[in-house]
C-alpha cells in the first residue's frame, strides 16, 4: 500500500545504505540513488523502489519529471546540483563543480566511455536526452579503481539496454525544443532505441529576451542565434544466454552566432561530439567478463571578426579506446580487474589570423598523439557483519614526448553500527594527464583539451572523506553528514586574450599552482507521504595558490562557495495533480574586479584588484512546477523558473565613461544576466 502511494504520488525517496551497491550492467529500476559514495539518477520508473536500506539514497524514478525544470526540460545534471557537495553553477553555465574541483576535474562517461563536451549554451538544455538514459551515476567519494584519468568525481551515464516488451514512443514537446525516443523490440532477443532532440530557440527566444532582459538597455542581449540537435542510438541483444552485444552511437552539434556592435565584434561558434562503441558482455567460468572498443571525439570551431581582425580557431580531440573487465570471487572477496587503453589525437588550438593585408606566419599545428593505459584491481569484502572494506589499486601509464606513470591506491572503510546508523571513511589518490582549459570566464563553451607533455604538467590529488548516516521513523526521515578534504597539485589557470592569440601558444598563457578544498555536506530528507523532499547544505572552501598570481598569496577558486543550500519539495494532491518547489541559495562566484583607473594615451584604463578577490552577488532562485497527468506518463507541465525575478548576473564588468554633457567621468557598472522569471509549458507523452 505504501509502495502504491509512493508510485501514485511520485514522491522522492531516499535511503542510506551502509555499503555501496555495485551497479549491474542492466541498471536497477530505481531512479535516483544517492549515497555518500555515489549518486545515481535514473529518469524513468518501471517498478517501485525496493530494498531501501541504510546508506543508499534513492529517488523515485518519476521524481525528476515532477521537479521544476527550466523550460520544462528535465536535466539530470542540474538535479545533481541540488545535492550536497555539488556546487550550484549559476545561470548560463554548463559546467559542473564538485567538491571544490575545476570543471575539467570530473570524468564524464557515456556508457563508461570518456565523453568530451562543453555542454549546451546558456544552461537552457540538458546535456543528455533523459528519455534515452537508464541511469546516471555519480561517484563522489571512494571512487572505484576502474575509474581513472581525472582528479575528481566520476559521472557515468548509462543508456537503456533492457529489452522492451513492446514498441513505444515517448517524448516531450516544449516551447524551445522537442525530443522523442523510440523503443523498438526487433525480435525476442534484440531491441533498438533511437532518440532525437532539436531546438527551435530562435522562434521564441528573442521575444522572451525582449520581454525580460532587453527591457533594460544596459543588459540587452542582441544578435544571439543558437541551435542544437542530437541523436542517440542503441542496439542491444543477446547472442546466447551468456553473451550480449550492445552498439551505441551518439552525435550532437551546437551552433551559436553572436554579434556585439559596441565591440565591433561578431562571430560564430560550432561544437560537435560523436561517439561510437561496441560492447560484448560474456562469462568466463560463470564470472562476468566484458570488453569494449570505441571512438569518442569532440570538435570546436570559432570564427571571430573584430574590427579589421579575423580569427579562426579549431580545437579537436579524438579517442580510440579499448577496455575490458573481469569480476570474480576469491576467499570471500569480490574482485574486479581490468585493462584500459586510449589513443588520443589532439589539436588543442589551431589558429588562422587575418588582418586585411597582413599575413601572420602559421605556427606548427600538427596533431599531437598520446597513449594512455591503465590496469586495476579492486576488492570488496565484508570483514564482519559490521565492517566492510573496499580497496583498489590502479596503475596509469601515459606517453606523449615522455613516459609518465602513477600508482593510485583507493580505500573505502564502512562500519554499520545498527540498522539505522552507519559510518564511512574513504581515501582516493588520483592523477590527470588530459587537462581541460576554458578561455571564457563567462560560460561560453570554448573548452579545449591538452595532453600532459614536457611543457604541460600532469595533475595529481588526494581526497579524504568521512561520513555519518542516520535514518529515523522506519526510514521515512534520513540525515547524512560528511566531511571532505582534498589536495590538488599542478592545477592550472588559463589566460587567453584575443590579441594574445597572435603570437602566444596556449602553453605561454597557462599558469600552474596548487589547490585544496574542504567542506561539510549535510542532507536531511523525507521519503514518504504526500509531502516529500530534501534539504541540502554544503559549507565549503576551495582555494588555489599560484606563484605568479596575487604575489603568491592564496586566493579563492572561481566557484568557491562558502554556503550552498538547496531545498526541494514536492506535494502530491492526487494521481493527476502535483506541485513542486526548488529553492537555491549559494554564495556568489569569486571574480576579479577593478579597484581604480587612470589615463593612458588619453584613454581611461582599469587597474584590477587581486585575482578573484571580489564576489558576485549571492545566487538566489526559486522555481515552481505544476504537473497535470491525464494518464500514466502523459501530462502537461507548467514551470516557472526564478519565480521572484531575482537578478542573478552571469558576469559583471565596469567601464569608465566620460559624460560629454556633465563633464563627469564616471564608472559604469553593467551586470549581464540572461533570464529572470521564465515560465514554460510542455507536453509529455508516451504511446
Amino acid at each position, binding site marked *: 500500500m505504501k509502495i502504491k502511494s509512493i508510485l501514485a504520488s511520485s514522491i522522492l525517496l531516499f535511503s542510506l545504505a551502509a555499503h555501496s551497491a555495485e551497479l549491474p550492467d542492466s541498471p536497477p529500476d530505481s531512479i535516483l540513488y544517492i549515497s555518500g559514495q555515489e549518486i545515481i539518477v535514473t529518469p524513468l520508473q518501471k517498478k517501485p523502489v525496493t530494498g531501501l536500506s541504510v546508506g543508499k539514497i534513492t529517488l523515485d524514478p518519476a521524481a525528476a519529471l515532477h521537479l521544476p525544470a527550466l523550460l520544462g526540460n528535465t536535466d539530470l545534471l542540474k538535479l545533481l546540483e541540488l545535492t550536497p557537495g555539488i556546487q550550484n553553477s549559476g545561470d548560463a553555465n554548463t559546467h559542473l563543480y564538485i567538491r571544490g574541483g575545476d570543471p575539467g576535474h570530473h570524468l564524464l562517461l557515456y556508457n563508461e566511455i570518456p565523453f568530451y563536451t562543453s555542454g549546451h549554451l546558456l544552461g537552457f538544455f540538458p546535456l543528455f536526452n533523459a528519455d534515452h538514459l537508464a541511469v546516471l551515476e555519480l561517484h563522489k567519494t571512494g571512487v572505484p579503481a576502474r575509474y581513472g584519468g581525472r582528479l575528481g568525481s566520476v559521472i557515468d551515464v548509462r543508456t537503456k539496454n533492457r529489452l522492451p516488451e513492446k514498441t513505444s514512443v515517448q517524448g516531450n514537446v516544449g516551447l524551445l525544443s522537442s525530443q522523442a525516443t523510440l523503443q523498438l523490440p526487433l525480435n525476442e532477443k534484440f531491441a533498438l532505441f533511437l532518440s532525437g532532440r532539436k531546438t527551435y530557440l530562435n522562434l521564441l527566444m528573442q521575444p522572451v529576451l525582449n520581454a525580460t532582459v532587453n527591457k533594460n538597455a544596459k543588459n540587452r542581449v542582441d544578435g544571439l542565434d543558437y541551435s542544437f540537435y542530437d541523436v542517440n542510438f542503441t542496439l542491444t541483444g543477446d547472442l546466447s544466454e551468456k553473451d550480449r552485444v550492445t552498439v551505441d552511437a551518439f552525435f550532437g552539434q551546437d551552433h551559436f552566432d553572436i554579434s556585439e556592435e559596441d565591440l565591433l565584434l561578431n562571430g560564430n561558434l560550432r561544437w560537435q561530439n560523436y561517439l561510437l562503441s561496441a560492447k560484448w558482455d560474456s562469462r568466463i567460468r560463470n564470472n562476468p567478463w566484458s570488453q569494449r572498443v570505441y571512438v569518442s571525439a569532440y570538435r570546436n570551431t570559432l570564427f571571430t571578426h573584430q574590427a579589421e581582425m579575423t580569427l579562426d580557431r579549431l580545437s579537436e580531440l579524438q579517442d580510440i579506446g579499448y577496455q575490458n573487465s573481469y569480476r570474480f570471487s576469491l576467499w570471500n572477496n569480490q574482485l574486479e580487474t581490468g585493462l584500459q587503453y586510449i589513443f588520443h589525437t589532439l589539436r588543442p588550438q589551431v589558429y588562422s589570423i587575418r588582418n586585411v593585408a597582413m*599575413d601572420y606566419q602559421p605556427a606548427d599545428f600538427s596533431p599531437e598523439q598520446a597513449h594512455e593505459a591503465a590496469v586495476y584491481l579492486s576488492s570488496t569484502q565484508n570483514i564482519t557483519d559490521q565492517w566492510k572494506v573496499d580497496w583498489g589499486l590502479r596503475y596509469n601509464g601515459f606517453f606523449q614526448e615522455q613516459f609518465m606513470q602513477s600508482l593510485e591506491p583507493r580505500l573505502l572503510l564502512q562500519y554499520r553500527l545498527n540498522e539505522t546508523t552507519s559510518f564511512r571513511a574513504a581515501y582516493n589518490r588520483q592523477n590527470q594527464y588530459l587537462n581541460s582549459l576554458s578561455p571564457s570566464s563567462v560560460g561560453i563553451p570554448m573548452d579545449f583539451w591538452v595532453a600532459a607533455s614536457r611543457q604541460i604538467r600532469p595533475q595529481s590529488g588526494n581526497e579524504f572523506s568521512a561520513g555519518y548516516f542516520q535514518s529515523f521513523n522506519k526510514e521515512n526521515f534520513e540525515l547524512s553528514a560528511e566531511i571532505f578534504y582534498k589536495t590538488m597539485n599542478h592545477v592550472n589557470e588559463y589566460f587567453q586574450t*584575443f*590579441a594574445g592569440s597572435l603570437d602566444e601558444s596556449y602553453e605561454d598563457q597557462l599558469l600552474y599552482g596548487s589547490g585544496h578544498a574542504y567542506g561539510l555536506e549535510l542532507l536531511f530528507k523525507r521519503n514518504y507521504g504526500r509531502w516529500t523532499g530534501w534539504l541540502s547544505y554544503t559549507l565549503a572552501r576551495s582555494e588555489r595558490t599560484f606563484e605568479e598570481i596575487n604575489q603568491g598569496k592564496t586566493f579563492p577558486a572561481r566557484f568557491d562557495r562558502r554556503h550552498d543550500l538547496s531545498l526541494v519539495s514536492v506535494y502530491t494532491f492526487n494521481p493527476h495533480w502535483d506541485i513542486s518547489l526548488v529553492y537555491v541559495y549559494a554564495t556568489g562566484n569569486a571574480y576579479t574586479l577593478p579597484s581604480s583607473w587612470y589615463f593612458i594615451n588619453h*584613454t581611461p584604463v582599469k587597474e*584590477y584588484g587581486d585575482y578573484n578577490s571580489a564576489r558576485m552577488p549571492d545566487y538566489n532562485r526559486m522555481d515552481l512546477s505544476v504537473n497535470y497527468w491525464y494518464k500514466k506518463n502523459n501530462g502537461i507541465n507548467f514551470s516557472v523558473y526564478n519565480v521572484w525575478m531575482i537578478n542573478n548576473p552571469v558576469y559583471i564588468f565596469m567601464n569608465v565613461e566620460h559624460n560629454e554633457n556633465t563633464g*563627469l567621468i564616471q564608472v559604469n557598472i553593467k551586470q549581464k544576466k540572461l533570464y529572470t522569471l521564465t515560465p514554460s509549458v510542455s507536453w509529455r507523452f508516451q504511446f
Partner: protein
Amino acid sequence: MKRYFYILGITLLLVSCAEENAVQFIEYTPKVAVEGWIENGFPAVVLLSRTAPFDHPLDTTALMKQIITSAKVSVSDGEQTEILTLGVNYDYMPPYIYYGQTLRGETGKTYTLKIEYNNQVISAETYIPEPVPLDSCWFVKTSPSDTTGYIHVRWKNTSDAYYQIATKVAQKETVYTPCLYGNFSAAQLTVDAIVEIQINKGPMLFPKIQFNTYFSAGETVYLKFRTQPKAGYDFWTSWQNEILNAQNPIFPAHTNLISNIQGGTGLWCGYGTYTYQIETQ
C-alpha cells in the same frame, strides 16, 4: 495539510524578501600611474597621476586632484642626468607634463627614469631600438567617390623588432593613437621580406568615443612608424586588449596592463621613430 501551506507560504515570503545585491567595490589603494617616453632625437616626456577610485564619479576639479605636480622626475642615460620640468599642455590628459630639454634620445642607449614623490621612489628602465624606415605610405579609397579610406604602408621587415604604428589627424586629434592591431612583432611576419599592410585607425575613448577604423579624405595625417622594446610591445598589446575586450564575453580582459614601472604602474618606453605626413586626397 494546513500546516504544509503555512510552511510553503513562509518559505515563499522569505525568499521574496531577498533583494538584489549591489556590486561591492573592493578596497582602493592608489598607485602612481606613469606614461613616459623618449624618442630618438627628442627629449623625454612624462605624465604622472594617481589612480582614481571606482566608487564615485569625478568632476574636473576632482580629476585635477589626481594629477601629480609635485614630483621630482629625472632621466639618466648613464652619463648625464636631467631633472624634468613641469609644464601645462591641454592637448594631453592629464594636462600637466614633465618635459626634458637637454637630454635627447639616441638610438641604442638605455634610459633610466626616477620619480621621487611622497616619500616613494618609482623607477623604470628602457632603451631606444634602431628605427626602421617605411619604403612608402599612401591613402587608398575603395572607389573614387568614397569620402573615406585607409592608409597603407610598406617596409622591409627586420628580424627582431617590435613595431608600433600610431597616427594623429591634424586639427582633429591632439595625441598619437596606436592603430588597431598596429602593435606587432617582426617574428609574426616574414623576415627580411617587403611587407605591406593596411592600417586601421585606433580606438579613442576620450573626450569622445571614436571607433572608426578609417580615415577621411582631405585630412592631414601624421604617422609614426616606431620600433620599441619588448616591454612597450607587451604594454600596448595589453592596453588595446583592455579597451577592446573589457566587455568581450568570449575573450574577456580582466588583467592589469603589463607595466615596466617599479613601484607604480604604466610605461616608460624608448622608441626608434620615423614620422611621416600623409595627405588623404
